[in-house]
């Protein structure tokens, strides 16, 4: 599983990259359209345009880089202002395997997540730990919000599409992975 996330080449994202993934939530196959936007500050204004219409976002920082954690609020602000107001944001601290180089504690990040109403996870793209979970969590939360009526998939720009199959259980989520540090790479 981890290979699917750890790209062998170590090239950085130019602007935005695209991927998709089907996850299974409660018997429903959900297709996630994933837009991986570059995390460098210099391309921030370029990638902004892709935020609109996303149903969920993964905000990724590097647990071994204080700097990447510090810029989170900027990215969060962008996401909140540009995407739909009901966007589900998952805060992801990557590189949890590099415990000795850690600069941001779990507690600090989870406090930040709590203050900003985010779901928080720490992952390791290298070992694959929690990577699938973070996407799953996002999909689950979106589904739950649809069921409670907090999100109306009919609203334009919700980023959610029901598929045209007779059994209406296939939901696509347009989703963005916002990697404020080298993304899901180790």
């Amino acid at each position, binding site marked *: 599983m981890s290979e699917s996330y750890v790209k062998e*080449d170590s090239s950085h994202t*130019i602007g935005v990259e695209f991927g998709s993934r089907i996850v299974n939530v409660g018997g429903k196959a959900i297709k996630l359209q994933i837009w991986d936007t570059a995390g460098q500050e*210099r391309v921030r204004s370029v990638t902004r345009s892709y935020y*609109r219409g996303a149903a969920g976002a993964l905000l990724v920082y590097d647990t071994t880089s204080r700097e990447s954690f510090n810029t989170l609020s900027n990215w969060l602000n962008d996401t909140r202002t540009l995407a739909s107001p009901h966007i589900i944001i998952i805060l992801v601290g990557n590189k949890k395997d590099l415990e000795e180089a850690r600069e941001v504690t779990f507690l600090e990040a989870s406090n930040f997540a709590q203050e900003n109403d985010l779901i928080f996870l720490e992952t390791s793209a290298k070992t694959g730990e929690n990577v699938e979970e973070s996407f799953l969590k996002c999909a689950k939360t979106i589904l739950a919000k649809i069921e409670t009526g907090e999100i109306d998939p*009919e609203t*334009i720009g919700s980023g959610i599409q029901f598929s045209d199959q007779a059994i209406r259980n296939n939901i696509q989520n347009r989703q963005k992975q916002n990697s404020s540090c080298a993304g899901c790479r180790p």
Partner: protein
Amino acid sequence: MFKFLKNENKKKITDDNDPNDKTCTLEEVENIFCDSEPDSESVSSQIRLHRNINDILNDRTTLSFFIQYLETKSSLSFVKFWLDLEAFKALQNGHTPLLRLESRSSNYNSKAEVKHLLSNSNDDCCEINHDIEDCISVSTTSFTESNIDETEETATNICTDEVDHSKVVYNDDLERMTQSLTDDEKSKICEKNRKKEEEVAGVGDTELNKKKKLQPSILEDALRIYRKYLVTDSVYQVELPAEYLSKLSLALCDSEESEDKDEEKNTLLDAFEDAQKYVVDMMEKDFLSDFLESSFYSKYTVDVLTSESLSLREILYSESALFFFMEFLEQDKENCKLPYLEFWLSATNFQKQKNQHHELDIQQLKSDALVIYEKWFSLQAKTPLNFSNGIRTKVEEGICTIDSSITQCFDLPIKIVEIYLDRCCFKKFVKSQLFFKHLSEVINKIDGNAVNKSNNGIIRRNSSLSLNFPTKSRHRRVNSDIVEKKTIPRSISTQNTLLAGLDHKKNKNTTDLHIDSRQLADPDLLWRRKSSVNGLFFGRVDAFGRYERDFDLPSGSTSIPSSKSLFHLQRSSIDVDDPQTLLELDSTQNRFKNAVRKFVHLPEDSVQQEIAWQVAAMIVKDVTNITMHNNKSS
């Protein structure tokens, strides 16, 4: 919708006759570029689905939609201010101080230009047109006057008069301007005013008069704009931060006495330019994303998407459509065109960096370019796009430059890919489900999300109240109410038991129905709902032009159309998400229909039909009443 269907038909026809659709290869497209300069038509079709504030303001069509949108937000003054400043700038730029006489004609040109721009921006903003024209004509007349004065060089008296007159105006304005200034600035302005008065007192100097006389053309315009938008209690007040205001005020004051007209004009223009930029930023921040979600922009999008000249470029440069195109390419696996789009995305994002404000870091750009190169161009590339050697060499050359022209190194492949994708996928995409989905999404947005698909409840978000159907005892009371009102002929009241029995039966197999409490508490709301405003529709035309009936037409129901529509009213306020509920609803509906038919059945009198209608109306009313009481008591 009609327009759209027509276009689709045409597209299909042309497509069927087009055997090139699939045979197009990358090589062919490359050849277009290698053989000769590509014909401009195929390469640079204008992009219309832009989503950036400057593009919207500078495109006449989008501007007119934006103006309509701002009108609904009662924030027209921002865009008016912006337009006035554009007109002002256009006029000033057409006016070079050194060639005053000649500038009359150039001035006229720019005026015509601005007028043209404005008249094109739709009838809906005619008010603005009027304002601007007004403004333009004022400035032109004042300008003409000054020219005449100058050539005649005799009218000293008139000059003095006019200077005095304008002095009064200016002083008045300055007073108002100073409201927003600090004491320091105020005293400065006062001092200037005094100086100016002294100068005016020492008339007789024609040179000085001439100088003074020439300024009003600029100044009057500037002051007019200032008075219109920046004075505190103006109707069109645009709130600028104090720093912009004071800068503008100072520029206006300075320009009154400045010796160097060029410089004074420039500071004034600069100050206005800053203010304009600020307003644009404001509009971007406060209105842009809302506008892009609004029905106005959706209308525009539909126009573009259904126009015959729609090209792939429109899709590529509109993010919302791009999502669907991406999905389309992904599903179309055997064609394997996704890498081309991925390259296009990366490369255009790479290009965009040159538009950014900050300094370009060539090293960074180079490493970005290399990433793209290694991914799609290099002979070792994992997902090679199979460009010819010639193109690859050109890209390599482009990457190896040492100046900022490196941002252009992918320009050619980007163009090639655009045409390539356009030729091999676009027609298919336009016919695809996904494109229709996108289009119908946008069309739905125009209706303010009111067009609900037949099975989707309207009121998911509203608080819902579970309604137990009235108990028998309560219903008796209701029935007696009806009798008391004496609105029903006897024949019906004698059969009331039937209705009661019906309701009783209903009671048995109806579970809790979720009914929107707000709708019931105020029956009038039913009619004010957006869906009702559009008429009580029973069906709709879907993306394929087929008529879809929202409700199954019950057999024989033609005899009681009115009661049917009433039922739909009720039904639309019921959360029909749950298919079970739907079934139950249908069965109750049928039972009720049968019951009503009993009234209508025997005598074929139209009066009986009318009565049946009334009964139905009353039942609806009663249910509403009951729930209203429920609501209050609970």
